[in-house]
């Protein structure tokens, strides 16, 4: 059986599949686990290079590279690659996140060899044909103009910029940054895709010995050239007071409220305390305080949530909702009064019990699919955790005390120094939001500066 909840002192230990782990001579770390529920295989390769490694002014480069990787290799054209993959009924995708790039595949078990070979071809032998580069750039330059039709995207783009500033994490991709990207930039960035900073997780319906042979034959010849990327250090810039921006979109019948503040990085002693506090505050859907007050009692929104996101070197707490224009100020005030209450009163023992109960119970739900297991293992490994850490995470979460949660709230939540973005119809809400504080103003279709 894949999963069993063994209860030790009321805190379960999760059994992940048994992985065989090894490092190939070229530096590629490999983790393999058999999973025979269905005749299918899943693999994820993580390469530790992401959009945060792109030079300032070239935002979009990492995404363009990922898009172009399956658009031609030494052996196949773009059309041949898509035809071959589609014919299996499976899928193979490359995508670049902020911190790392992922190449992930899922196939019927009979197509394991094909899937691995094609992945190996993409990470080693992408050729970036000129005509594919031109087409991809043309599509992106037009597509980039449509992001602002979604008020949430507008709010988060401005929020990220106000918090993270002129860094690769704060700057967004624009027509200008896309124009600055050349095919040589893409080819050079692709050189960062190398085995000594990569980890492959393979789970599915196969025999481990067979899978190992296939991995060796497809990826054994992959070599790293030159020096690996040297990631720039990240420096916090404190926020002093309220950094408030209003973004005008005259068409909107609703105002979107988006708040951000500094949180904690992934590796932090308070990570479980913060996770539990966030669930109680706004992360726990209908069980959260924000949903109860802003939707359940106030009827002011369809949804309101908070989150605690964390990266290797920084983290952020966020809150977002949308409400009808006349209620924008009242809704903001409701959220702030809940944030103040959280700071002043902390959470109760009963709320904490329920939050722990949720995370403890929900663990198997996140591990139904081998693809989800692979993703969760890779993410943990990136941040320096082990499979054992994953398996015992609920023990640690359940050991957090009420005092520790409330101390973490005091130490990390800040109702004063934060970013606020409101996207809405200026004519209808500009005056209403003035009592919140002074703000600068942008138009929703403008680039974010």
């Amino acid at each position: 059986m894949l999963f069993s909840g063994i209860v030790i002192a009321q805190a379960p230990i999760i059994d992940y599949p048994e992985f065989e782990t090894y490092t190939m001579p070229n530096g590629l770390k490999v983790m393999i686990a058999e999973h025979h529920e269905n005749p299918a295989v899943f693999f994820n390769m993580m390469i530790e290079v992401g959009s945060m490694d792109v030079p300032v002014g070239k935002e979009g480069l990492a995404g363009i590279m990922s898009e172009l990787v399956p658009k031609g290799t030494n052996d196949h054209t773009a059309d041949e690659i898509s035809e071959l993959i589609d014919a299996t009924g499976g899928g193979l995708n490359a995508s670049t996140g902020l911190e790392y790039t992922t190449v992930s595949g899922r196939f019927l078990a009979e197509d394991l060899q094909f899937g691995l070979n094609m992945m190996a071809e993409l990470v080693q032998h992408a050729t970036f044909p000129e005509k594919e580069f031109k087409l991809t750039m043309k599509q992106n330059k037009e597509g980039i103009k449509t992001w602002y039709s979604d008020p949430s995207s507008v709010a988060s783009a401005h929020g990220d910029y106000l918090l993270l500033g002129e860094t690769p994490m704060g700057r967004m991709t624009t027509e200008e940054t896309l124009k600055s990207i050349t095919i040589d930039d893409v080819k050079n960035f692709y050189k960062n895709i190398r085995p000594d900073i990569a980890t492959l997780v393979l789970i599915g319906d196969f025999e481990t010995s067979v899978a190992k042979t296939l991995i060796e034959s497809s990826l054994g010849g992959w070599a790293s050239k030159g020096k690996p990327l040297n990631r720039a250090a990240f420096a916090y810039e404190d926020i002093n007071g309220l950094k408030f921006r209003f973004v005008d979109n005259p068409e909107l019948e609703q105002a979107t409220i988006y708040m951000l503040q500094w949180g904690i990085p992934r590796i932090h002693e308070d990570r479980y305390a913060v996770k539990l506090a966030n669930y109680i505050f706004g992360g726990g859907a209908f069980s959260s305080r924000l949903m109860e007050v802003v939707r359940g009692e106030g009827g002011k929104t369809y949804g309101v949530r908070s989150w605690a996101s964390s990266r290797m070197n920084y983290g952020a707490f966020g809150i977002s909702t949308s409400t009808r224009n006349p209620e924008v100020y009242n809704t903001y005030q409701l959220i702030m009064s809940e944030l103040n209450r959280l700071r002043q009163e902390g959470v109760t023992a009963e709320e904490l019990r329920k939050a722990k109960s949720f995370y403890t119970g929900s663990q198997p739900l996140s591990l139904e699919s081998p693809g989800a297991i692979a993703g969760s293992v890779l993410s943990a490994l990136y941040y320096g955790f082990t499979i054992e850490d994953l398996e015992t995470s609920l023990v640690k979460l359940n050991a957090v005390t009420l005092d520790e949660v409330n101390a973490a709230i005091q130490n990390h939540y800040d109702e004063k120094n934060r970013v606020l973005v409101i996207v809405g119809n200026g004519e209808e809400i500009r005056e209403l939001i003035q009592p919140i504080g002074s703000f600068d103003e942008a138009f929703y279709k403008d680039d974010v500066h």
Partner: protein
Amino acid sequence: MKKILFISLLIITGIFADEPTHFVLDNGLKVIVMEKHSIPVAAVQVWYDVGSHDEWDGIRGTAHLFEHMMFRGTENYESEEHARLINEAGGYNNAFTSDDVTVYHERLPAGKLELALKLEAERMHLLRLNEDILATEREVVHEEYRQRNANPIGKLFLKFRGQMYPDNHPYAVTPIGIMDQLDTVSVKTCQAFYDMFYGPENATLVIAGDVDLNNTKVLVEKYFGSVRPLGTLPENPDLSVPIQTAKVVLNEKSSFDLPVTLMGFPVPGSAHDDVAALDVLSYILSNGQSSRLNQILVREKQLALGAGGFPMSMKGPGIFIYFSFYFPQVSSATIEKAIMDIVQDVRENGVSETELSKARKQMLAGKVFERYSANSLASSLGNAELIMGDYREFNKEIERFNAVTADDVQRVANAYFTEEKMTIMHIQPENLSFLKKCMFWVAGLFM
């Protein structure tokens, strides 16, 4: 190829241990169970045979508003307590309302199956409605409506759909309803709606996951066995009202900065024999980068950023929709012609055996991947039972799909994709400057 067929046969012939089965309680509640023991997760879904098509003029939007009220308290549980108890157990729950059905769903640790059954049974017959809460939920639904309207294309899609179904068709108004009418809905209206539709004989309970059939039977009987049947069910609305009998062209403007074209053709309901061939065609047209619409519109002609074609599956008549969002310098007439040329090619020349094989394998792989998720299995079973008419269609789907021939695909393309019954909506960006328009006009001459 042998191995593919082998896998298909395993699924079709029910050799997998985890095949669905069903039983019916004395009060008429049909229960479908599918055991899947790989991980201790269960999915519980209650599918009520009531959707927005059951509403009448004056109460448009009630089915959906009522769905919200089903979370707002029963005789033994306070408002929102149902959702909170499921969360506390480590589970997730929600609901949705479509034209045809209203579905309440839980996904939770298998050991908490009893809790989900107890709570679902409770709200099936002991709901308590309250005027203040109704007023609050009405505001929440207004917010949901505004949120959807914030998407300029989403807003126009409602108009497109409204055009395809005439005013006298039960699908004429979408589940979100008409806000003015929703404002007049009272507790009395909601109670009448509940008394009319929410009973065991008008519902199907679907349970999938790490559950034991015998134990499940005991639990279901324990909590649902005492729920009294409604006795009389209202007559089903007449879905056979003809839709879209003549060509309609709509030209719209929007704040979305790319032009979009939507083309809709009426197709039969999900239980019709032609649906399998239409599904195969949908795979060939738009599943994957190598599908026809993407290959021709996006890659070869480089007219569009994206394109697809899929059937909107309904119990009654559905719509097969083609869409594309494309470069501003491309005219809507060009994109319309490019899509119609692809349709015409299928009508005249059919599809190839290679395309058929690819579609079959894509379907098969999708079914294998689906089997990892108890919730996906429950959704497919519920859909097969309520929309296609029999949950056993769940397993016959691959068989029906594999039986489709190239001739079948060509025949359905000729039967349904005729210009005389097409609704087409061209959506142009409204904010193009005069200079930009001139530039695009000149550029368009060379495309």
